[in-house]
């Protein structure tokens, strides 16, 4: 398989409501990614679109609807979707277009416009539950995360303070992000612990917000990169993805086995045998603060139950030994489901090419890992990138 590099990235502001239509957001992000790679739409062989359920935007066949904004007009074009996992998975789909030799240059464009859904996207989230087993109980989506968080806390004896530290770190990290929706330089652990209880143990500041936004990246083959003399590139050295049982009440929720399997696949491809030593920084999926900890363990960057300790000791701060979510993550930058590719793959690219500005990790980094999570809490997608 051929070597694949990320050579450009772009994203819109992430906000609760944007005036732009979904296609217009896609255009803005795509144009920025092309400009940063020094390419035009004519240079692109194929286009991948990633976007979450149609019901958020309220447009059926959203992939088709967004295609012109994604640069897909009269090109081979595919929409991929793995729930929240799309945030990283669509870049894997882009990777296989190039790695296989089918394409030299590929656009990957992710979008979500959650403000269309009134009064709150919560109303359509209800429809991801099993209609017969779960929906008669009239569940609120937050319940499932609350139950997973509680199980994780129970098994390892994790304190809420240690989980709140993740929210504080990420919202502070997001201060350096020009697109951030919920950056806060002054937030404290007490603010999180004193925020409104939604579904215990989940409190308001444990959750990332719904957002409108789009993000885009450009992928290219090694050959193309050499030919075009492109300097800013980061290699996608390993990819992996995995899904667990759809019967979510049959799994022990304390550990994301599916993330571990996806990570093992990605690490094997990237020739990583000791992830904690060989990976310099991470962008795990953090729609809730506890998820960062859960996913760090799934990514085998912490032993089971160890992630809260690493966080408390400052290891995961931007200037720590293993910076985690230097972008500000979903907690700080926002959560337009699939478009979080901007904080995950985008951030890896910007960090590895020294373009992260105020967010640049102060020490030298060569290898990062990004991960997203989705469907009904059982899907993991993992990408390792190296300079």
């Amino acid at each position: 398989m051929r070597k694949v590099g990320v050579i450009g990235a772009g994203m819109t502001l992430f906000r609760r409501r944007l005036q732009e239509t979904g296609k217009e957001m896609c255009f803005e992000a795509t144009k920025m990614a092309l400009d940063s790679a020094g390419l035009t739409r004519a240079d692109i062989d194929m286009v991948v679109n990633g976007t979450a359920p149609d019901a958020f935007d309220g447009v059926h066949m959203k992939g088709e609807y967004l295609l012109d904004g994604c640069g897909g007009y009269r090109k081979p074009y595919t929409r991929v979707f793995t729930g929240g996992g799309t945030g990283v998975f669509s870049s894997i789909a882009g990777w296989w277009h190039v790695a296989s030799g089918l394409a030299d240059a590929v656009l990957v464009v992710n979008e979500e416009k959650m403000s269309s859904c009134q009064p709150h996207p919560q109303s359509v989230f209800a429809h991801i539950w099993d209609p017969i087993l779960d929906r008669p109980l009239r569940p609120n989506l937050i319940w499932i995360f609350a139950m997973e968080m509680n199980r994780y806390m129970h098994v390892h004896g994790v304190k809420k303070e240690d989980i709140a530290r993740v929210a504080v770190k990420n919202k502070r990290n997001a201060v350096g992000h020009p697109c951030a929706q919920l950056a806060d330089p002054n937030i404290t652990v007490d603010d999180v612990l004193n925020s409104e209880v939604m579904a215990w143990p989940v409190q308001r500041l444990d959750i990332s917000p719904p957002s409108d936004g789009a993000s885009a990246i450009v992928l290219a083959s090694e050959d193309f990169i050499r030919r075009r003399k492109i300097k800013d590139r980061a290699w996608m050295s390993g990819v992996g993805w995995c899904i667990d049982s759809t019967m979510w009440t049959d799994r022990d929720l304390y550990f994301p086995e599916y993330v571990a399997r996806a990570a093992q696949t990605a690490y094997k491809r990237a020739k990583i045998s000791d992830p904690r030593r060989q990976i310099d920084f991470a962008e795990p999926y953090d729609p809730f603060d506890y998820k960062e900890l859960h996913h760090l363990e799934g990514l085998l960057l912490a032993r089971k139950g160890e992630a809260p300790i690493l966080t408390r000791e400052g290891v995961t701060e931007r200037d720590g030994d293993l910076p985690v979510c230097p972008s500000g993550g979903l907690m700080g930058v926002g959560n337009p489901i699939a478009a979080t590719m901007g904080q995950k793959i985008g951030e890896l690219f910007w960090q590895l090419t020294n373009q992260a500005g105020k967010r640049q990790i102060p020490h030298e980094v060569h290898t990062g890992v990004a991960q997203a999570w989705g469907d009904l809490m059982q899907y993991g997608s993992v990408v390792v990138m190296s300079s």
Partner: protein
Amino acid sequence: MSERIKKWPGVELSAADLNEGKVTQTRFRPNAKYAWSAGEAMSRFLAELQNGRLIARTCHSCKRILFPPRMFCESCFRPTDEWTFIQDTGTIETFSISYLDTDAKRIPDPILVGVVSIDGASPKMGMMHYFGDMTKEQIRIGMRVKAVWRPWEERRGSVLDIRHFGPLKEDAK
């Protein structure tokens, strides 16, 4: 982020811009009604709920007792083999104390909800349900519980035929 990028696109709107029509917009309410077929496994499961029993399927290959019941084993990828009744008692695997109802509206009296692994099924196999006859201070992971069934005439062949799971008094057995 690139420090080279000077302008980040996006026109932010306030809730008022949208709700008071300060920008042009089009509103639509879909009217989508569904009837989901319960299929083979769920139809039997619902019928047995109406009888006040929980039923599972066994897989002879992996020796699991699968609950909720299903007609194929997702692990062995073969048809499951037999119906088997399991108990209506179990253990709280996890729970939440929800101050939000289904529409994300705040409620003063929280809903106790969680996952119960059911006795007689393979380990960790269970279902989501409400908890009752206990306070939010009393509920804990590992607590033993038993289904509290609605009276026969109120049952409809639904998971709601169980009102909730309440504390199991082991010595009363």
